[in-house]
């Protein structure tokens, strides 16, 4: 049985934003990308036209491993939309840089897990394609495809 990444009854798409379009298209080849400074190597999220460290304008979408560690998480229980089942949101530190963080859904984890088993756990990125947008979604590292 394949893992269902499409767990939101209503998914609000990102706005059209030239600065961020690469991010939402990045999953087309299965890779997660962030803007990275070509001069100092610093990744910036959310994307910015200049490097927030060295102010270089050479910011290029750059693929990362998509692997990371859960910094914190929550299980949303409230049905903001009627019928929505509980789901897990995680704040993940991406391996490439200690302050490179992404909030996204975390799927494939028991929602009743002890918090200590989720925080610090290893995850990787899958993508849910909907309406031309590739939503990065975290799953436990090595989770069956």
């Amino acid at each position, binding site marked *: 049985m394949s893992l269902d990444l499409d767990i*939101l009854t*209503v*998914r*609000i*798409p*990102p*706005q*059209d*934003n030239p600065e*961020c379009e690469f991010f939402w298209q990045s999953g087309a080849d299965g890779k997660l990308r962030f803007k990275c400074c070509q001069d100092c190597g610093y990744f910036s*999220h*959310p994307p910015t036209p200049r490097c927030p460290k060295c102010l270089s304008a050479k910011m290029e979408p750059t693929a990362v491993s998509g692997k990371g560690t859960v*910094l*914190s*998480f*929550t*299980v*949303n*229980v*409230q049905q*903001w*939309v009627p019928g929505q089942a509980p*789901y897990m*949101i995680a*704040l993940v530190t991406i391996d490439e840089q200690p*302050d490179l*963080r*992404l*909030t*996204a*859904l975390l799927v494939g984890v028991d929602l009743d897990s002890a*918090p*200590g088993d989720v*925080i610090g756990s290893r995850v990787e990125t899958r993508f849910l394609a909907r309406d031309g*947008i590739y*939503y990065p979604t975290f799953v436990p590292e090595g989770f069956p495809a």
Partner: protein
Amino acid sequence: MISNPERLSFISGIGRSASGRRLGRTAMDLTLDAALQAIEDAGLKREDIDGVATYPGGDAIASRGMGGPSSVQVQDALRLNLNYLYGSGEGSAQLGSIIEATMAVASGLAKHVLVFRTVTEATMQGMQSRNPGQGMQVASGFMEFLAPFGAISATNWFAQVAQLHMHKYGTTREQLGQIALTCRTNAGANPLAVYRDPLTLDDYLNARMISTPLCLLDCDVPVDGSMAFIISHVDYAKDAPKIPVHFNAVGTAQYGRPSWDQYEDMTSMMAQGVGKQMWSRTDLKPADVDVAELYDGFSIITLAWIEALGFCAQGEGGAFIEGGQRIARTGELPINTHGGQLSEGRLHGFGHVYEAAVQLRGDAGERQIPNAEVIVAANGGGPIAGALLLTRGISN
């Protein structure tokens, strides 16, 4: 030599409209009730008001009841001639409007500034939806990298702060629950509070989850209502009919990334910098504070403010509030003596300032903290923060 410019101003008048669930009245209607009461309380006439400031400004319907009328709408409704006008959702949280008014007065731009904050969130939720994503076609601004991932509610964002605080420091739900319980106990002594029935720890632990580890009772209660203050120059203090509520120091700092999920230390908030800056502007110390009116949009925010303002060390907030004795009205640091937003209702920051003024004047009745002379009022959570250190009487 004058010390902090904020010490050139004080709160001369306070006013509040009716507040409660779904009052069915317009934002302007509520605002004028509060404004006229504040002007009268200050011993002034409306012609004396030469400045208006508000948070966040804008339109109550477009903002889903989170904002009341704009400053210019109130100017027009009262036919005021103004030397100063301000309305913004940016700045030092809700308190930005008050702090701007203190600076307008200190710089001589205005003598008496009417500052108001109006919410009609209860009515608007009834008319529209409780879904924060309702009507949101696309995610933009700070929601651009939150809403597409289902993180549509502030509960989700603060839940991750609470979760990490619990994981890293061993803070428990039993400890966090003391914020809600303390607020409810205090609301029992506040006739204007929305929720006044006693609450037990079992009630708290059994309340339904909203976003783990935050349950319903960790979340404040949307209401309709308006509050207003008159910020006047200290020259007026000798003529003012009520005990002056003096600005001793303000905190406006923004250190670190202003983001719901990218702030460096996710067990804390932008409040850290505000606390440091506010204490750097005064000789008073945390130990001098008689009462702390700390923003409680969510219980975890209050805990973060207790730490950020130096009442205990970072990470020790859970132990500090354990059992609730320290933060009770009889404790060493009474908090949210009016019941906070968790039980009085979400008057969105201004309720904390209003209660600080009532306590400093000695007008809090059954819930009065004896000899309250120094009160800190803090607003905002996550990347939003501002703080006021207020004293009873002018004390330059």
